[in-house]
């Protein structure tokens, strides 16, 4: 569905991504692993149209994805839930969700909301509470829920486990898995390699802007290199 072919991208004159090749098929969860500063976020931002590639091509459903801004990319059905959540703290949960459905006609809002509340019953209870007053885990759920409101055909999640307690991380990963079971492919960027590989079909390992490893999730979990570098085992 999504294919990155020899993508070079960066900020100004600095090149962060040095030729990324990556592929994601229908119904898959693919995880992108890597240390801090490896370029994971930059990869997602490039797909989402926030960062323009310096060279290389992105293909979406076998056609080149030509878009100069995130809202154009979103109109192709690719939705990014950004690193650090970026929910709207002074808007209510409901308003946050409605902004997620910004491009949907308002007659669809209720069915969308019902579906999202199904994944996150907690958000239904808190729908009139301000986003900024939610706990970290709830805010992350809101960020994912908001992305779901746009009815994405591909979901890009940037470090959903960032700064959350282990039980909450497990909950969120369960929900990600459940969303994927409904047929939405997910590109999951994580530093929490163990959890990510547990729910992913395949994974890529990124080191300073280049893919050094790509394999099925089981093989990566078993590989010595990954165990040493990302799972904290010797």
């Amino acid at each position, binding site marked *: 569905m999504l294919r990155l072919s020899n993508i070079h991208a960066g900020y100004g004159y600095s090149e962060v991504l040095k030729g990324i090749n990556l592929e994601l098929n229908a119904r898959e969860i693919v995880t992108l692993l890597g240390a801090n500063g490896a370029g994971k976020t930059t990869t997602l931002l490039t797909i*989402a149209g*926030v960062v323009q590639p310096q060279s290389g091509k992105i293909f979406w459903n076998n056609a080149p994805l030509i878009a100069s*801004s*995130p*809202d154009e990319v*979103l*109109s192709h059905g690719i*939705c*990014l839930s*950004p690193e650090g959540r*970026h*929910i*709207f*703290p*002074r*808007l*209510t949960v409901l*308003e946050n969700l*409605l*902004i*997620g459905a*910004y*491009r949907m006609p*308002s007659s669809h809002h209720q069915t969308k909301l019902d579906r999202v509340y199904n994944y996150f019953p907690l958000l239904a209870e808190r729908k*009139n*509470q*301000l986003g900024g*007053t939610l706990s970290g885990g709830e805010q992350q759920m809101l960020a994912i829920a*908001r992305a779901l409101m*746009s009815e994405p055909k591909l979901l890009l999640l940037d470090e959903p486990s960032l700064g959350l307690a282990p039980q909450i991380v497990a909950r969120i990963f369960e929900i990600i898995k459940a969303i994927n079971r409904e047929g939405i492919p997910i590109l999951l960027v994580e530093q929490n390699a163990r959890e990510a590989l547990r729910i992913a079909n395949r994974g890529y390992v990124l080191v300073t802007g280049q893919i050094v490893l790509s394999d099925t999730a089981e093989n990566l979990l078993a590989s010595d290199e990954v165990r040493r570098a990302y799972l904290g085992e010797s």
Partner: protein
Amino acid sequence: MFTRLRNYILGFLGLAFITFPFLWLSLKYNYATGNVATVLNWAHGVKFFSNLTVAFAIVAILMALHYSNKKWNWSHPILLTLRPLAPLVEQPWWTPFLMVVVLSAAFYLDHKSLGLGCMLGIYMILALGLNITIGFTGLLVLGYAAFYAFGAYLFALAQQYIPGLQWWVAFPFIFVLGSALGWVIGLPCLRLRGDYLAIVTLGFAESFKELIGNLNLTGSDIGLSLSARSMVKAIPGLTVLQTTYIIVTVFLFVILFAIRRLYLSPIGRAWVAIREDEVAANSMGIDVVRMKLLAFAISAGIGAVAGMLFILYSSYINPATAAFEQSVIILAMVVLGGLGSIYGVMLGAALLYLIPEFLRDSQLIQDFSPNFSDYRLLIFGAIMVAMMLLRPQGLLGSHRHKHEIKRDT
């Protein structure tokens, strides 16, 4: 069905109850001399009554529409033609009452109060317009008075070249051209944020003021006046001032409804999202550039229409309208009332316009210092500083702050 009918009858009775005192007053008021007559003046009474009947009829229709169908299906072919009226009908139930009370004020206010009422309406429209950029979208625009002056000058100039040009012909063009100017000014500003945007818009306003103050076309520093043919034509039975008041009030209501509706629509949500977090708004599919330009344009268009209303009221315009002081006053109204709060900014406009006006007339103040109004800006400054310290969200802060308070208790 029955509850609908009951609501309708209750609404009508309530309306009659509220408007009765005005009816009674107007019976005793002699328009020609301005005296309150001791005997009933039937001629005036009947005239007033016919006016009131029209008002009644309008309100009755509005209320009937309101109650007959809570959720409007505007796709019905007949209703489709009435679509522009949608914001009027979908207001809270008390809106028709308020409209009647405010509109019928034209009949019982004296000359001076009507003048105050006109200017108050114009300032409320300005505050509502500026609130779109500063309050909803979070774009700090400092030179708003330039758009205000633009509208006034545009009408004053146009009626020189098109003799007998009427305001009701001109206002759509003034709105559109004002919006276009806002769009054009907005374009280079979009790369800027916060203080820089404020400085650029301020610079535009200042150069605009210098321009109209020096061009012969715009009457340089003397300004332009409205020819008699383009002034407001009085509604039969009313004075020109009463008519102007009604025009300003109707504009105020329509703009208020339109803005309320915009605020609750996806466009309004997009503006607020941009104010809160531009990056997130963009990744949620909001075209940030277009939405900012739209806010700029609508805000500027409303400012220009307010300018047209001003010249209809004063029939004269000079470059002082575009002065920095004007922009600051409008900004102060928005900040005092509460950034982003529709009713807040109207309250802010009322306070900051009416209080200095009343103070100016007060004997106490006159004795204390005859040119007290020279200190207006100083007092505004003090109020602003106090507000920032005591109540940074403004008097009626937007409902977001209410949520916070509710949760804490």
